[in-house]
């Protein structure tokens, strides 16, 4: 159940998208996100959606994986869609008491839904095609300038690596402890909010204790392998920009220009 979540998972492959430099991918994703919000009308938004779909196809990852990552945020999509339905102006199509659905409302709902779906799609591309260590490595390098402000960039990146590594381990452990307490008659499914929170204690306390034990072990294992912070550390996989990163960036620039153009045209008409 918890293990079915595909959001944030890495799926190894050899597609063009996989081979793009991780830093380039992060920067391009950020730019894409900005432009998905910049896109102000249906024409420019569908342009962004089309580009995102194209990128999705280029990853050569089965579409079912994207659909599964969509499943997690399905509720959010439906919720925002419905909320938007009731706000808006224009011709009233249907009315019941204070609830009123207008043409503008439907327009808004569809627009926002497409926007969120596009956002999730393109964000999944990054995590699906980039190994966690490339990702943290890229973040570390991109944030490097922040060391000037005494921000421990390497340490932050290492924490992210470890967190990503241990999330599945802790999820499995949570499952085990829950079963063990249920076998002792713990009732976690009924009762009010207060009772339910209290019923979680028999799971949370062992989970904390075990996390500390694991942290202790891991620290020792890292020491055994001569870990000494970021100084003098090399990497097996060195990130370097290639011509394909430049091409991708140029293509994106063209798309962004088109989006801006569509927006301006949209405003005029």
């Amino acid at each position: 159940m918890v293990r079915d979540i595909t959001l944030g998972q890495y799926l190894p492959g050899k597609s063009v998208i996989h081979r793009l430099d991780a830093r380039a991918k992060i920067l391009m994703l950020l730019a894409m996100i900005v432009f998905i919000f910049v896109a102000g009308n249906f024409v420019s938004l569908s342009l962004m959606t089309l580009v995102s779909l194209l990128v999705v196809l280029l990853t050569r990852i089965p579409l079912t994986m994207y659909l599964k990552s969509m499943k997690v945020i399905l509720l959010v999509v439906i919720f925002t869609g419905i909320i938007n339905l009731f706000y808006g102006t224009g011709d009233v199509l249907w009315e019941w008491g204070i609830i009123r659905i207008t043409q503008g409302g439907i327009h808004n709902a569809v627009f926002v839904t497409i926007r969120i779906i596009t956002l999730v799609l393109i964000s999944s591309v990054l995590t699906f095609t980039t190994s966690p260590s490339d990702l943290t490595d890229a973040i570390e390098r991109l944030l490097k300038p922040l060391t000037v402000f005494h921000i421990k960039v390497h340490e932050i990146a290492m924490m992210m690596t470890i967190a990503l590594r241990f999330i599945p381990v802790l999820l499995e452990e949570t499952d085990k402890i829950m079963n063990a307490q249920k076998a002792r008659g713990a009732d976690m499914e009924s009762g009010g909010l207060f009772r339910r929170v209290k019923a979680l204690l028999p799971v949370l306390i062992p989970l904390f204790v075990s996390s500390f034990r694991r942290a202790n072990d891991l620290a020792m294992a890292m020491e055994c392998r001569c870990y000494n912070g970021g100084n003098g550390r090399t990497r097996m996989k060195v990130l370097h920009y290639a011509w394909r990163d430049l091409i991708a960036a140029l293509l994106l620039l063209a798309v962004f220009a088109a989006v801006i153009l569509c927006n301006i045209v949209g405003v005029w008409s």
Partner: protein
Amino acid sequence: MSALIEVKKLFFRYEETEQDKAAPFALNGVDLTIEKGSFVAIVGHNGSGKSTLAKQFNALYYPTTGDVIVDGMNTKDDEHLFDIRKRVGLVLQNPDNQIVAGVVEEDVAFGCENLGVPPEEIRQRVDAALQAVDMYDYRLHSPDKLSGGQKQRVAIAGIMAMEPECIVLDEPTAMLDPQGREEVMAAVRQLNREKGITIILITHYMEEAVLADRVVMMDSGKVFLSGTPQEVFSHTALLKQHRLDVPQVTELCDKLKGCGWEVPACVLNEEECVTALEKLLSADKKGNVPCAVPLTEENKSEAETILSVEGLTLTYGAKTAFEKTALSEVDFAVHKGEFLGIIGHTGSGKSTLVQLLNGLLKPTEGTVSLYGRDIWKEPKKIRSVRFKVGMVFQYPEYQLFEETVYKDIAFGPKNMGLSDAEIDEKVHKAAAFAGLPEELLEKSPFDLSGGEKRRAAIAGVMAMDPDVLILDEPAAGLDPLGRDVLLSQIRDYHAVRKNTVLLVSHSMEDIAKTVDRILVMNRGKKEMLDTTQTVFSHGKALETMGLRVPQITKVMLLLQEKGYPVNTGVLTVEQAFQELLKHMTAQA
């Protein structure tokens, strides 16, 4: 051979606070030399100081007094720290907790990256290290999708990539199943033989220690015995005094020798034992003997049934692309008051099965009946089934959470809604059954020793007074004496309470000593269900399912194969001894 590690008059105690300075030493004057290229096993019970010693070899701990010299460098000199850790790598017990990165090859590279090795060279070293432990094909996998044995081999590769002289393994197989244990031991032996890596193996599995060139036995922070496996294991009585064990074949031959029979000085494996016994058994007694005892037809009328399953099937992720059948069409009945063993390799469906028995999982098809009543008939009352069918999971000590041991044991009875007086009675009774001294009840469960925590957790389930008690690998990770004591306590509990007990275990020796009948699971199906003797006489069939028979039974089966008319339904060393004596006295 020259010395790689020299330990000289080493005393050590954990000195984290002022009070600790008065504490006894964890290591009490250890003198030890590890030769380059050797394979040394360090054995000792839990708390004997063997793991503490392991952490001295690569300067994780420093001696309080005395010295540890690694390749001419004193571990007390901080300037040598990384040189020492580069030469001496340490592999820990828990396979999950020592893997840092989310992809196998990136984890293996971690050590090299820390040492500042150039990228191209790291690539080569990582590939070589993964090939050395036979994990190259898994280099792009995520560690959490691997089995315990595979994870442990990744951890070894991570050390290998640093090109060490020596690998110290601190109970690397304690949390693994037999197959994982074999994989790790094979990898370790190969590194020792083919790459000349010095191996220091900390273990309390005697079958692993016999593979070493030298065995060092420790107790109370001191070295008690040191020598070849033959020399060390010839001191059967002394080892037992120090809470250790010897292989069953060694014990058998030792017994025979004690009665004046001519047996080689120290027998360490099955083949040696069979050869030795052949000399004692008369050749003319050979003849055709019937093979494995046929499985008996299950006699249902004979005993009262307490728990039964019919057509039990469980499919995970039914109707999706990830559909996986964990259990398919299992039928059997558990007799009231019996002690049933459940065996099967990892992934055979036995864990799924036991979770179905107490309603933690709901079957996709089929029924589980308790006292002839389908437990899912009223899904709302499933909790009451869990009180009647108690379940002790693997490593149950990880579920302890209360302020005191007493409160923790009382958690189950409290959930049952019993009165304070009843709870009190149940807690004390359960603590006694689990062998937990009264004075520990008011302590915090987190202050107990590993073995005591295990007992407290088992008591927590016993306190619900279940009619059926299921124990999943209750003795995992305990040392030999701890394991024997715990098992005998469970047997006593069964004898006194006269309830039904189900024991899931990978240890065939424990199963043989304990249960009346065995259920064999294989690939999600019931393979056999019969008396312990009958099941173990099918040694060959069990082997094809990735299972073994107890070592002593194996010896008898080998003798039978060679044509000796010995009874193969032998389960313990004592029984084997009596059985052999019968044949040998006849000859004399």
